């Protein structure tokens, strides 16, 4: 096997499978003390429908990676100095190649200055495609407002199109009530759901019936309930439908931009209908994340909920816009072990049921084992190793990964003393030339003065000179 770089490996995978690709990403922070090179050239890809786990300690750059993907770096301080982020093959990131701040009398201007009104291109590009949930559920929700208000706000802001479509579809269903009821009575629930999915897509009324479908009551009872629910819907006035259609067309034409609200201002009544629909949708979302008593939760304030419940609300919000990718930045670190288990199980279920791609960031290798399909190990702003979970845990290639596995106390670790990696994380103000782990590595040699390139071994990638020989041999 000749040495190939990562790009070739990527093209081996089918193009359609790769949902996110990061190429040679460099992120620098411009602070008073100097330029911190937080991420120094990382390359990786994420496959559709998988869970990618990013593991690293503090200072490794894992959180910065997440923030960079959603353009949440502190403005004016952090920026991408090089590299691209590709979502579904399209470039979404903005590179501020010439963005420097005033450091030590060197004065250079910010290139693309953002006005306070304009939303950056990066954010526009990812809206609806990438969601993120954060570590501390305590501060993620605003304590002043009820959960209902916060969920509705997010949905109304980001997904008017979907709401309007749902309302119109429901209206449509009401018009065709008779036919559908007949279909239901004659052909059964299965055919009924299929018909609705065919007509209205997976977003339609079908969703509301999920709960009834999945419960354990009898067939006839279910049918009666569905019929009742259908009959309970009230048709809308014609002019409302017209204006809704109008807005839908407007929205289809342009990307939703805040502050152009004059064009999209809704009258009171339509707003109310949309709000109602958003509320119903929120309740569906909460049921999706296994929340008990979603209606009560909607009416409560964040401080009345436990940590696990708050995190579930965040996950519900994260999934609300049906994103392509959900990024979870240490979502369970602040929770106790039992709740952590439940949340991990929930995320895994969402991944399997909905095909949601998840990027999961943590420092805990045990959590990685539970939830991740592939693991990416970061150290000092660079990638050490990427590979499938079971291989990384059973045969860690990079010495750092090995050190990490040995320093966590666990049942499998039967040593008398924990192995602790000697030395300290390098200072990212002046990162060392060559391999950044060399000063702590017990296998370091002269070669390690140069930065090791990426080697591919059996479908995994390692950044360590130790594997040059192996590659040439095989």
């Amino acid at each position, binding site marked *: 096997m000749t040495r190939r770089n990562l790009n070739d490996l990527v093209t081996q995978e089918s193009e359609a499978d790769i949902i996110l690709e990061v190429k040679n990403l460099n992120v620098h922070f411009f602070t008073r003390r100097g330029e911190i090179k937080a991420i120094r050239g990382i390359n990786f890809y994420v496959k559709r429908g998988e869970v990618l786990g990013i593991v690293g300690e503090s200072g490794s750059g894992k959180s910065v990676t997440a923030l960079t993907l959603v353009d949440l770096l502190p403005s004016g301080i952090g920026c991408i100095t090089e590299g691209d982020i590709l979502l579904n093959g399209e470039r979404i990131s903005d590179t501020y190649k010439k963005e420097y701040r005033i450091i030590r009398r060197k004065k250079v201007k910010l290139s693309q200055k953002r006005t306070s009104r304009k939303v950056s291109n990066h954010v526009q590009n990812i809206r609806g495609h990438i969601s993120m949930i954060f570590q501390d559920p305590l501060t993620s929700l605003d304590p002043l407002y009820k959960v209902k208000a916060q969920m509705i706000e997010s949905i109304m802001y980001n997904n008017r199109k979907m709401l309007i479509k749902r309302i119109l579809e429901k209206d449509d269903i009401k018009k065709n009530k008779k036919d559908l009821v007949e279909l239901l009575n004659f052909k059964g629930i299965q055919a009924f759901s299929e018909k609705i999915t065919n007509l209205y897509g997976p977003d339609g009324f079908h969703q509301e019936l999920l709960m009834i479908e999945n419960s354990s009551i009898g067939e006839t009872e279910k049918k009666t309930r569905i019929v009742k629910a259908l009959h309970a819907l009230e048709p809308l006035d014609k002019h409302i439908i017209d204006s809704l259609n109008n807005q839908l067309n407007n929205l289809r034409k342009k990307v939703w931009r805040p502050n152009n609200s004059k064009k999209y201002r809704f009258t009171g009544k339509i707003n109310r209908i949309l709000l109602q629909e958003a509320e119903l949708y929120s309740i569906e979302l909460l049921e999706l994340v296994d929340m008990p008593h979603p209606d009560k939760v909607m009416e409560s304030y964040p401080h009345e909920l436990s940590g696990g419940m708050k995190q579930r609300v965040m996950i519900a919000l994260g999934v609300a816009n049906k994103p392509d990718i959900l990024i979870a930045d240490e979502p369970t670190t602040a929770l106790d072990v039992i709740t952590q288990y439940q949340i991990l199980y929930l995320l895994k279920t969402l991944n399997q049921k909905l095909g949601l791609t998840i990027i999961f960031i943590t420092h805990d290798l045990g959590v990685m084992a539970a939830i991740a399909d592939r693991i990416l190990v970061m150290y000092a702003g660079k990638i050490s190793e990427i590979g499938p979970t*079971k291989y990384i845990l059973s045969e860690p290639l990079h010495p750092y990964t090995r050190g990490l596995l040995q320093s966590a106390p666990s049942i499998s670790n039967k040593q008398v003393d924990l192995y602790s990696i000697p030395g300290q994380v390098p200072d990212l103000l002046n990162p060392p030339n060559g391999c950044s782990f060399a000063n702590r590595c017990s296998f370091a040699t002269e070669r390690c003065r140069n930065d090791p390139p990426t080697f591919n071994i059996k479908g995994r990638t390692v950044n360590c000179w130790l594997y040059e020989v192996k590659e040439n041999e095989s």
Partner: protein
Amino acid sequence: MKASTLISINDISVDYEIASGGGILKKAYLRAIQDISFVIKEGDTWSVVGESGSGKSTLAMALIGLITLSDGTINYNFNDQKITISSKKGKRKGMKSLWRKIGIVFQDPFSALDPRILIKDIISEPFIGHKIGKKTEVMKRIEKLLPLVGLRAEYLEYFPDQLSGGLRQRVSIARALINEPEFIIFDEPTSSLDVSLQAQILNLIKSIQRSTKLTYLFITHNLMVARYISENIIVMYLGNILEKGKTADIFEKPLHPYTQLLMASIPLPEPGYELKKPSAERVTQGSGITIPNGCVFHDRCPVATPYCGWTPDELITIIANELYNLTGERGISAEIISETSFDIHVVNGNIISEVKDIISRNSKFFKTFREGGNVFHIELFIPWKPRMIKVDEYREVKCILLDKEFK
């Protein structure tokens, strides 16, 4: 030579005063820890394991005398002094002599050190404050301590904000050791540190223990850390000790359902680890201000029995929950008749059969139920108050299921 008892904790409880809900003059209390008893012998290493809110930090504060007990006593049997603290308002002077003998390392390395004071002064503060010796003597002690905790001498002249979290914890440990205490409490010292730093600090503590035969109590929420660092474990939940014993025994065979649940929830960094459906199905709701009647864990316990302490409120919630999940309706109203019985009125006639279904499925939680038209009358047992049951010389568990008398 049998090790002598260093500290014996007898049935202590601590109450916190909370903003009262019932009127201005009426005070409400939150029982943070309840009836805790155990014995620490010289040279022992103990861990207290529990989630946040389980009272483990309160226990640490009570042991060091920063919090007054509401009940019970603690007897300290130091080399040259015997001290007892109890629930009567502790005199400050008495506490001072206690503080000479005990060191404590807190969780947060960032607020533990005064940012305006040099490291060397921080470490020597307890020595000078307790007037153990002169200033010249303390420098000699610091010199001896530095290699023990792995701090370089030049750090003495630094200010805390120039040091990283791991180094700060070492300073805290040095400060705790400066008076050569007979007992140290570690309150989650590594929770805010990285895994490799944690490994360093844990190894450090272990090596200190090996060389000085230190007695310590280590508080953590991580069972694996507890296993690594101590020979004896206490598992706490909502202020109660649920299980206590030798680490090796507990890991080999956990007896209490909560301990078993904890062990099952820890994700192991092993290939092939798979998540199964969690058994603690009920997601906890909000604050735990009201302390349950019987066993503190009964509402989350997978093997709970009718005697474990159910209140009518809890059962009504469970039934209503299931009804909603099943039918999407809330067509019941409940009336609580007494502490051990309540009625459920079914408003919507259509769902009576479902309600009966749910109630009979949940009948393992109560004594009997009776149906009369639209009304279900449910009777509960009087909850059994669980006690600590001695399983063997070192092991005690607080669970009704293991109480032989209960059968």
